[in-house]
Structures are given as C-alpha cells and as structure tokens.
C-alpha cells in the first residue's frame, strides 16, 4: 500500500500524463491524439450556455473517449482565475473561452499555447474576428451578432427602422414598445454604441479615451434624452427577449445566437424575427485558447481541433444559430440573411468603450 502511494506521489510530482509545449511540438498528430486519450479528460472554461454546451460536446466525448467537464463560471470570474493561476505550474483550465473583443485585455503569448504550431490544419479556421487577431493563440469557435429582434405581428419588414432617426420616429409612433438594456449583456450596449457612433464624428475604434472625446458624444446623449419617454430600459439581454415574447415590447436589441437558442428550446416565441439595421450593429465572436499550464494539454488540443472544425461549426450553427467560424462550414441556419452581414460593425475599443458606457449611464440612464 505504501509503495503504491509513493509511486502515485512520484508520478504526480513528475507530471506524468502532462506534456509541455516542446513535447507537443515534437509529437505527430497521431501521438497527440493517443496522449489525449491517455489523459482521458479535460476541463473547458466557458461562461455561457453551459448546460447546452455540455450536450453539444458529447459528440466529441463519443468520438475520442475523452470526458469534457464544463464548470459553472462567469466571464470575469474565469478571467480572474486565469490571471491568478498564471504562476501555478499546473492550473485547472485545459481550454479557455473568451470573446475576441476582450482578448486584448490579455497578453496572449504570456498565457496560452501557440496553436498555429500545434494544430494539424489551420486553414479555414477563423483567427481574426471583428478586426481583432487571435495571433495564433486564440481560434474562433462561436460567431455572434447583435441586431434587433422584433414582433412581426406589429412591425412589418418594410417599416423596420434602419437609422437613429428612424428609431426615434418608431418610438414616437409607438411609445414604450421598444426597449434595450445597458447592463447584463451586450445587445443593448451594442445598440447604444452604434447609435452614439452614427450621431458623432469620433473614432470608436481608437482605444484612446479623454474627457474631450467623451464630450463629443453630446449629440447622441441629447438624442437619447429627448426621446427618453418613448423607450424602455430593460434589465438584461434575457429580459428584452422575454418581454418581446410576452408581447409587451415589439422591438429590442438581442444577440442572434441567444434568440435562436431560446427559440429552438421553446423558451421564446418562434415567430419573433430578427434583422441588422443598416446603421450597423456590433458583432464578433468567441474563441478558445489553451493555457500554458493546462493539466491535459494534449486532450485540450484535440478538443480545440474538433471544436473549430467545419463539421462542428456546421453542427453549432444548426443547434445554436451561431455564425460559423470555419470557411467550409454551412451557416444557413442563422437568423440573419447573409446579405445583412455587411452591416456588422466591430465593438468600440476599450478603454474608450467602458468610459463611453459609463458616461451614457450617468447622463441618460440616471436622468430618467
């Protein structure tokens, strides 16, 4: 018994079953898959739709015999954990999901494996989303888009507002029938940001923030305040969709994949339609990376290869309505017609984005 315990302790101390970047670089793909199957498990930190994604990864588990654990976590919580665990020799995370627009908060090379060197085939896999590069460390697995969800029973396709002025006209004609959130989700902030962008002359993609730049938003701030009585502030992304589904609201910003997922599960009315206004709304996507101290790096690599493949991306499009992040995938099940994708804009750059939103809260939300 003591011998067994000692052998286990020694093997743990020597890191048996783990592989460093150098080891993986020197291995063939077949050897990596074999090692991955020997490791037999991995933990994927992803902050949304955990229940649904647990179902979606079962195809991977069946194919490779590797168990995927998706813990309950939050976006900021898992980022804090990543930072806190950076100096640990072996961390808890094998695969880490993050949105491309917040990836710039991290120096990717300090945290993650260079997947460009390790994946067997990177052709067709998105490494740049919304103008932000994953630099070979972050690969897209989830394309998403914000737009406007609407109730076709009350709003016809020909009357869909396309610009801030047309939205104002809709609000005036239908007071209290459009709502948007400013927190707990990015769909409302996307609408706010793009309206402010259209009504100002400043560069939203320059991260620089200054009191003068923020003051230049005044035209847009005035716009929202002038029409304050005619629109509703909702509590979250989910609240917006729930209130359209309940026929309280006729229009609200929403995430395409969020709405599609709710409709597929019967949690939102299936007749709710969706569009991207020509003034533009933000889109982007989420990517996956493998932390340098991943305990099951080989299994993580095989998982990332599977997750970002054309087949899996097609399956995610069918199940979740996501925009595929592989060039060969079929994206025909999305809510948005392909011709409206040209209206996608990137997210405003931080720290300007955070300051702009804080200014909006102070000058518009708190003035209500």
């Amino acid at each position, binding site marked *: 018994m003591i011998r067994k315990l000692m052998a286990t302790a020694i093997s743990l101390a020597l890191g048996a079953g783990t592989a460093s970047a150098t080891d993986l670089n020197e291995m063939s793909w077949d050897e990596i898959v074999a090692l991955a199957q020997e490791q037999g498990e991995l933990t994927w930190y992803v902050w949304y739709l955990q229940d649904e994604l647990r179902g979606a990864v079962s195809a991977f588990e069946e194919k490779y015999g590797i168990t995927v654990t998706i813990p309950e976590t939050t976006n900021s919580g898992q980022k804090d954990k990543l930072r806190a665990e950076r100096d640990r020799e072996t961390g808890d995370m094998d695969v880490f999901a993050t949105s491309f627009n917040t990836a710039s*908060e991290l120096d990717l090379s300090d945290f993650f494996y260079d997947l460009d060197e390790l994946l067997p085939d990177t052709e067709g896999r998105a490494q740049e989303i919304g103008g932000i590069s994953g630099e070979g460390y972050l690969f897209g697995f989830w394309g998403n888009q914000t737009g406007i969800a609407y109730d076709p029973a009350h709003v016809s396709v020909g009357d869909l507002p396309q610009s801030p002025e047309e939205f104002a006209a809709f609000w005036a004609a239908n007071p*209290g029938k459009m709502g948007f959130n400013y927190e*707990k989700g990015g769909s409302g902030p996307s609408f706010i940001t793009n309206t402010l962008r259209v009504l100002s002359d400043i560069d939203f993609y320059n991260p620089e923030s200054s009191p003068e730049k923020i003051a230049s938003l005044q035209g847009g701030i005035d716009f929202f305040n002038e029409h304050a009585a005619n629109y509703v502030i909702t*509590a979250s992304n989910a609240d917006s969709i729930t209130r359209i589904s*309940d026929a*309280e609201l006729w229009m609200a910003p929403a995430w395409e994949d969020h709405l599609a997922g709710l409709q597929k599960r019967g949690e939102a009315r299936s007749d709710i339609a969706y569009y991207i206004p020509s003034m533009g709304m933000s889109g982007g996507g989420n990517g996956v990376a493998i932390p340098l101290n991943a305990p099951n790096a080989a299994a993580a690599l095989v998982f990332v290869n599977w997750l970002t493949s054309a087949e899996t991306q097609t399956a995610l499009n069918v199940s979740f309505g996501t925009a595929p992040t592989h060039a060969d995938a079929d994206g025909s099940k999305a809510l948005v017609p392909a011709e409206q994708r040209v209206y996608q804009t990137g997210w405003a750059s931080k720290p300007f984005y955070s300051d702009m939103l804080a200014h909006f809260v102070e000058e518009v939300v*708190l003035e209500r």
Partner: protein
Amino acid sequence: MDWRKSAQVVLLLLPGLGLILAMIGSVLYIAVAQSFGYYNLTGESGFSVEFWESMLDRKIYNRSWRYSLYIGFFSAIISVALAYPLAIWLRRPFAGSDVIGALLKAPLLVHGLVAAFLFINVVSYNGIFNQFMQGIGLWDGPRRLQNDQNGFGVLILQVWKQMPFALLIMIGSVQAISDDVLDAARDLGAGAFTRFRRIIAPLSLSAMQAALVIIFMGAVADFSFQVIAGPTNRQSLAQLMVFFKENGQWNDAAVVGVTLMVLALLCAGLLALTARIIVYGRIR
C-alpha cells in the same frame, strides 16, 4: 489577574474570536487597502485617494448609496411594523395559531431569487396581476409594473422575505410579557395603543432593535432582489460593486464595498438608537 490567567483567557477565546477577527479582519483589510489603491489586480499598486475622490463626484455612486439606504430603512421599518401586531396576535395560542405561525414563516424557506422571479412573473405586462385588474374592470389595459422606478417591487419582496424573520425574533420577547402586567394596565384604564406603547414596546425593545438592525443590514446590501425586480435607472451599492468588479475596476468596487460596510454599520446603530429614543423618549 496574573499573566497566566490572562493568557488562559486569551487562549480560550482564540478559537472563536480569533477566527472571527481573522476572517472579518482580512476581508476588511483587503477592501480598505484596495479602495486606497493597493492590491490592484490589473495595474500599478500604491497608496492613492484618487478612487475615493473620483467616486464621491459620481452621480451613479451618490444615487446608489441613497437608494440602498432607502431600501434598507423602509424594509426594516415596514417589516417590524407588520410583525408587531402579528406577534401580539399570536402571543397566546389559539386553535390554528400553529398553522398560521408556520404559514407566516414560510417565506424563510423560499430563496430570494426564486421569489424575485415569481414576483416578476406575477407583475409582468401580461401577468396574472395585470389580468386580474383588467378582469375586475379597474384597469382598461395592461400596465408596466416590472422594475418600477420607485423600488416598490424590491420593498415588497424585502418585506415578504424579512417580515417572518422579524416575527421570529420578536414573538418570543412578546410572549415573555406576563399577562398580569397587561391585565394590571388594563385595570388602570390603559387602552390597546397605550398598553403597546407603555408596556409591550419597552419590554420587547431589544428584540425590536435586533430585528431592525439585522433586516436593515440585509436589505441595504441587497443584490438579488435588485438585479431582478429593482429599478433600471439606479443601482444598489451591492449591484454597483459587482458592476465595477465585472468591468475589472477592483479599486472602484472596493470603494463601494467599504461604503456599504460603513453605512450599514453606522446606520444600523443609528436605527437602533432612534428606536430606543422613540420608545423611551430619551437615551438611557
């Protein structure tokens, strides 16, 4: 007491008091230090009053602490005000009093988040309350009641959740008042309100103060009711703290956290003192 006995007392207290001091003290220390620029997780660490200065000027912060105090104060007062008559009513057992007592305490078993979601369903635009009001002809059409700007929804939820707690604390104290004392007062011509003011309230003051303080502190730090049923044009301190933390602004979150702790402590003390002054007419 010689040093041996002093050391013995300290050692005996250490397992309990030491743990409390270590747990609370370390959290308090980190929060205060972070509010002054230390332990910055994403930037330079070092002493700075910048975070306090900028926060004290912000509309969102000033509205937030006023709103939290409003929720805390009215939740405590209304909960205790409703619990008192119920405690007096249930002072002596009667047929069915056990069942009534159990029903009144039932909200203690329901998690606040569940209650908040149920409440939202009830008051939603096409929810049963709107349907009922239209059904009886009082309203012509549905009204928007969700996330009302006065925080009435949060107050209703707080009182629903906290009143049973106040009842639980106060009922023992009210039951301990002897019938002889109340009968004597009645014989001397004291009416119901005078008996309450001159006998029941003074003799149950400690329980009332405990209920006020505990409910106030819980309500002033409310997060779950606020994020679901609270107004969207203002945030509670706990909500604001999480908002900053989610944005990676740890030092700003710490400023809000320290404000929350200081306000909860000071105002709870003030509330207990005010209750004593009102009941006795003076501090004693």
